[in-house]
């Protein structure tokens, strides 16, 4: 675990340094230069953080669905702990995606919030997962809470791909897509793509590190609360 933490520490530090220090130039002459993305220019650097955060929230919601299904099959409360921890982290990363997106929107479109299809869909997703935790806190009995939450997590998980990937692509949006566009083409050079994919990998690693800590903490809390009863 210590080796993983050390590698992740160096990895994400390197990603941050590359993302900010590699110059964005109109004509690439050196290996460490990024191409200019029309309409984004220097603002394109937030891509290395905003997209991986959104990706990590998707990972969180998918993990939540997997353990929700497992809970319904096994009825082990440990699976419920794993499912709710994953959903919590998914919600956290979704909120961070919204914040970084709003900062990007301010500099690209002139205001923090525009009710753009992508912004609206992520807002609906935040509400759906916010309601998941409201549901959990409204039921006292552990088994009943876990069963209801598992069913809700599966339904919420079904809406997630539609809200994250489908809806923003079928309605005209201000959201930029010259980088990874609707045709699935990636308009980055090799260096930019390497830094971007490294960032995706780093954020996924960070997610699983925080996830393992959250699950261990939730297990301890559950053990102590059940001993207290």
């Amino acid at each position, binding site marked *: 675990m210590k080796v993983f933490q050390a590698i992740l520490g160096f990895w994400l530090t390197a990603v941050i*340094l590359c993302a900010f220090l590699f110059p964005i130039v109109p004509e690439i002459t050196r290996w460490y230069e990024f191409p200019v993305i029309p309409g984004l220019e220097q603002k394109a650097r937030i891509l290395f953080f905003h997209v991986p955060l959104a990706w990590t929230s998707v990972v969180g919601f998918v993990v939540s669905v997997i353990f929700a299904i497992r809970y319904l099959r096994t009825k082990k409360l440990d699976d419920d702990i794993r499912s709710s921890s994953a959903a919590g982290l998914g919600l956290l990363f979704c909120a961070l995606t919204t914040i970084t997106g709003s900062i990007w929107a301010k500099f690209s479109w002139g205001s923090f919030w525009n009710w753009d299809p992508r912004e609206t869909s992520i807002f609906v997703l935040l509400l759906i997962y916010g309601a998941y935790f409201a549901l959990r806190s409204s039921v006292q009995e552990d088994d009943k809470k876990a069963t209801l939450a598992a069913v809700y997590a599966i339904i919420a998980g079904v809406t997630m791909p539609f809200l994250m990937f489908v809806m923003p692509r079928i309605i005209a949006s201000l959201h930029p897509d010259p980088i990874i566009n609707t045709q699935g083409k990636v308009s980055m050079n090799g260096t930019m793509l390497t830094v971007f994919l490294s960032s995706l990998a780093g954020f996924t690693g960070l997610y699983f590190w925080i996830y393992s800590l959250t699950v261990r*903490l939730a297990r301890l809390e559950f053990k102590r609360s059940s001993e207290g009863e």
Partner: protein
Amino acid sequence: MYQFLQDNSLYLVLAISLMGWAGIFFYLKRLGARISRLEKQDKS
């Protein structure tokens, strides 16, 4: 001062990002150590 910040805004954002990441990293490391201690207490 404002001119200096405007001219070096990229380095300023880089410094803030690095400090933020360092803070998160060491917080998570400390949290992991604390959880391990609590888990040991629970086992004994």
